[in-house]
């Protein structure tokens, strides 16, 4: 993997297989169907969450629309023992790690800061502070190395870590420091940068005049560009990088070139800065559509299976709608829990203040 302008693509936007000199698809048709299902489902999750936010059920939502292939392809390349650190937009990654979409909603509804147990799913909750978690991922990967849970050659043991972030994050000091540490300790971490062309309203060229993947080489890390709307290429490139990491060959930076088809978040108005024609251009490169065309042409996806999957999506959406509304509000007193590992007089006293207020309002 050397520095070059070329972009790995295995499935073009017309849904035809293409050749790449270094990568080929190792996927079975059943796996491709699974990817297709994943992408359809996470798009449904995204749509439903966006709707729930419009209806006032969520405080905010950051849509992944358009980035399904980048997220599903890369996250499906992870093994069970791997660990993912993501931003606020990686619902598809959380999905692949087994997180229930309703647990995802709890963060956006404001009932929890972390909607799921990071250790259970081996996937850390949403990180809002741009870039901060790139260092956590690197440290976690250093931990895997120091614990000798890499380079054993045992596919069930060797761990690697995924760090997800966006094009904008490439400018933050923390991300660049993560490259320094990862390179210095040859940590088994894969940096997966979804270049969705935008950091809110700022185009990628404000952050960099050269392709983002180029950044890696200067830190002594291989960098590679992949078509982020090609789920097969995303899978293969990530899988290879994870294998490299696991086997002691160090970190990789992957730049997945994709497009944020929705608003930055539900608070955003992209018409202020996005050009319609560009959005249209990317609509033709839709990640789900191209896999569908391919699978249909292959004859492995038929009407029946398609409607089965879309029924599954509808059922999931409905359950999200129902369960979102039922997500229990936290007990106000819970805010005094888990500030420290032990009880503290000052915090207990403040808790009693709130208890008094709450009991008073119950009396009324």
């Amino acid at each position: 993997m050397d520095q070059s302008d070329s972009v790995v693509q295995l499935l073009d936007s017309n849904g035809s297989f293409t050749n790449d000199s270094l990568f080929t698809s190792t996927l079975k048709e059943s796996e491709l169907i699974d990817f297709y299902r994943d992408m359809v489902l996470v798009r449904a999750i995204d749509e439903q969450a966006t709707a729930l936010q419009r209806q006032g059920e969520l405080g905010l939502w950051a849509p992944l629309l358009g980035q399904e292939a980048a997220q599903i392809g890369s996250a499906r390349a992870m093994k069970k023992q791997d660990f993912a650190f993501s931003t606020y937009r990686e619902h598809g990654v959380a999905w692949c790690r087994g997180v229930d979409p309703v647990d995802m909603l709890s963060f956006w509804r404001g009932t929890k800061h972390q909607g799921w147990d990071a250790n259970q799913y081996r996937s850390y909750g949403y990180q809002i502070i741009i870039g901060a978690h790139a260092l956590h991922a690197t440290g976690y990967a250093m931990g895997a190395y120091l614990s000798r849970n890499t380079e054993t050659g045992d596919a069930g043991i060797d761990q690697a870590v995924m760090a997800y972030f966006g094009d904008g994050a490439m400018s933050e000091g923390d991300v660049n420091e993560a490259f320094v540490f990862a390179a210095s300790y040859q940590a088994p971490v894969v940096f997966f940068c979804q270049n969705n062309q935008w950091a809110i309203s700022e185009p990628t060229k404000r952050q960099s005049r050269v392709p983002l993947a180029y950044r890696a080489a200067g830190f002594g890390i291989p960098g590679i560009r992949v078509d982020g709307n090609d789920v097969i290429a995303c899978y293969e490139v990530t899988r290879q990088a994870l294998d490299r990491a696991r086997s002691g060959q160090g970190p990789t930076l992957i730049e997945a070139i994709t497009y944020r088809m929705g608003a930055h978040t539900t608070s955003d108005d992209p018409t202020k800065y996005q050009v319609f024609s560009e959005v249209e251009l990317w609509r033709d490169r839709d990640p789900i559509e191209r896999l569908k065309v391919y699978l249909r042409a292959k004859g492995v996806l038929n009407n029946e299976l398609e409607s089965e999957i879309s029924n599954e999506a509808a059922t999931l959406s409905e359950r999200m709608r129902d369960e979102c509304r039922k997500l229990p509000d936290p007990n106000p007193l819970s805010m005094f829990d888990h500030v420290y590992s032990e009880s503290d007089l000052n915090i207990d006293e403040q808790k009693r203040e709130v208890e008094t207020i709450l009991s008073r309002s119950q009396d009324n």
Partner: protein
Amino acid sequence: MPQLSIVHALNQGLHRAMDADSKVLLMGEDIGKLGGVFRVTEGLQKSFGDERVIDSPLAESGIVGTAIGLALYGFRPVVEIQFDGFVFPAFDQIVVQLARMRFRSAGALSLPITIRMPYGGGIGSVEHHSESPEGYFAATPGLRVVTCSNSHDAYWMIQQSIASDDPVIFLEPKRRYWQKSEVNTDSHLNNISALHEARVLTEGSDCTIIGYGPTIATCLQSARLAAEDGVSLEVIDLRSLSPIDMPVLIKSANKTGRVVIVHEASRSGGVGAEIATRLTQECFYKLEAPVMRVTGYDVPYPPSRIEDDYLPDAERILDAVEKCMGY
């Protein structure tokens, strides 16, 4: 006089400051084409061009650090930090570099930089979007820290901050952003009360309530409710958290003998502690009760569904008043 929201007042204040001084330039994430996520800088790039309203790369330390360089060159940068919770990557540049340049150079170098930042909770948003980091800055010698509670102050204080030769942390009460009030634009910077001055909003005799920024509306509401019960509250809008306008506070404390300080930030180590300590020092024999604090609790900002239980409200302020009166 026009009724303006705080957002619009800030926008017009920035416009006027940029008109008045060609060295004023704006920097920040998404402040150009988008006009900022709260639209405070809306239209300014159109009016002044992209060399005076500069979209920055996504790096807060970088933004403040380059603003320092620009100020050394002779500019007056106005930096936007998109949300309170995102200021910390720039902490070193703000606290170690920006705050100290004048002192370090024995007055030879000055950094007239204003750092604008929406702050405070109550908007139902996710983690890191509802914080009150003012205490860190107020405890840092060399920084001015100010905040506005209404549109008139928003309009003038932003201009005063920009005109100040000191670095100013300018905190914008985001949950009051769209609240409208009168702005008297027919004045001049020199005729406006100084940036560091506190302001008595309602006179009262029983107890002094000191608030700032987003809590002022709550303080005023408490005063109205207390008045119904025959309790007379004197509400003071602190406006400047550093330096603190002690003479105004001391005068009021000496008069009422009772003081409640209100802020959204956590209680411990907040601005309230400093004011309480100084007031106790200065008004020891006049205070009928210890200075009370009605604040956020000593916990990280909670999930938004319970933020109302975290934020000071009129009920809690009146509880504290009652406690004071009971001494």
